[in-house]
């Protein structure tokens, strides 16, 4: 018992010093449970592969160049879709947030289309654009757009009216009020929208790749079902989880926190 306590104390001390270990620690019991269950053998290995099987498949797909290529394709598609989604979403959000007329005209349309899920567009997109990059990009842009627009509107509306008036009284023209008061004030919300949008976009991309893709992680997973390779499917799921964790926790969340601190949403 004392040895276990000492071991636990050592783990806690080490993980405090190394945040990466702190992140990985919760996965240790999950993987151990999975490994034990697979070794126990209620299901054949073809249905439930063990962690070493998945690791061996990872090494094999890396050696053959398949995993890096598919991963690169998925990431590039997400980056392209996100870039277009932001380029459309932020100006649209500013317009709807700043103009009452635009809000009256566009808000019902935004809510209407927000209710139509991205995957619901796929049948019609396949007819219009076929099985290709355009269809996948459309799905990602559509998915990223709404969280960005709605959060930008929220951000614009949450900028205090006193700041508008102060800028006006100092003689700032409307475009300077937008660029120097409204946009920085809305930036933390825009980042939140982007973070949500990218999360939804990532899931939509995988679904789109499964249906219309000829490459990408979604395609890899869906194609694996033809060969009955559960190992590849599990590997695809693990890769998706790790990649999204890195993008969200290591890149998007720090940027969101930094914008919040810089423009005053975080008040200690």
């Amino acid at each position, binding site marked *: 018992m004392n040895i276990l306590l000492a071991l636990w104390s050592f783990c806690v001390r080490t993980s405090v010093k190394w*945040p*990466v270990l702190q992140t990985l620690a919760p996965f240790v019991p999950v993987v151990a449970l999975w490994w034990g269950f697979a070794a126990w053998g209620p299901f054949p290995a073809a249905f439930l592969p063990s962690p070493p099987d998945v690791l061996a498949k990872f090494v094999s797909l890396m*050696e*053959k*160049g*398949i995993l890096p*290529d598919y991963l690169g394709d998925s990431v590039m598609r997400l980056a392209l879709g996100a870039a277009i989604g932001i380029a459309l979403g932020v100006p649209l959000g500013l317009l709807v947030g700043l103009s009452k007329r635009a809000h009256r005209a566009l808000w019902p349309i935004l809510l209407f289309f927000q209710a139509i899920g991205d995957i619901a567009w796929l049948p019609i997109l396949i007819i219009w654009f076929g099985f290709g990059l355009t269809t996948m990009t459309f799905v990602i842009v559509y998915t990223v757009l709404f969280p960005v627009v709605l959060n930008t509107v929220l951000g614009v509306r949450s900028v205090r009216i006193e700041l508008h008036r102060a800028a006006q009284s100092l003689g700032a023209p409307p475009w300077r009020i937008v660029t120097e008061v409204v946009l920085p004030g809305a930036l933390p919300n825009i980042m939140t929208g982007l973070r949500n949008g990218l999360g939804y976009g990532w899931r939509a991309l995988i679904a789109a790749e499964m249906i219309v893709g000829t490459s990408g992680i979604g395609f890899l997973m869906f194609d694996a079902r033809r060969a009955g390779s559960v190992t590849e499917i599990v590997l695809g799921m693990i890769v998706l989880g790790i990649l999204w964790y890195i993008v969200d926790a*290591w890149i998007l969340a720090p*940027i969101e926190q*930094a914008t919040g601190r810089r423009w005053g949403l975080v008040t200690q």
Partner: protein
Amino acid sequence: MMFLRSALSSRRGLILIGLGLAWLCWQAWLAIVAPAKIGTGFPDRQRVNAVVTLPFAPERFHILVFQRYGRVSGAEGNSVELRNIDKSQLGAIARFYWVRRIEPLQQGG
């Protein structure tokens, strides 16, 4: 600049920058070793035929990649016959780390 400074001051940022640098080094290494993979004796014309050898039996993925560069006319063992490739593209094919060797396809092959 502020973003770079904050990235450099965090461990996660340093890991990401390290990964980025490792990727750049890997790409540079692939570019350096690629010419050595291309065999001699390619005819002196714009489009050539080649045999591309891999360290494993090619799968559908590899055939689809090769089809971007030329016409795949067959595969045997670990080799793929690729015809009508632009000679300037041989380097791009050799840059794939999973390509071991590119040699000219013999006449009648």
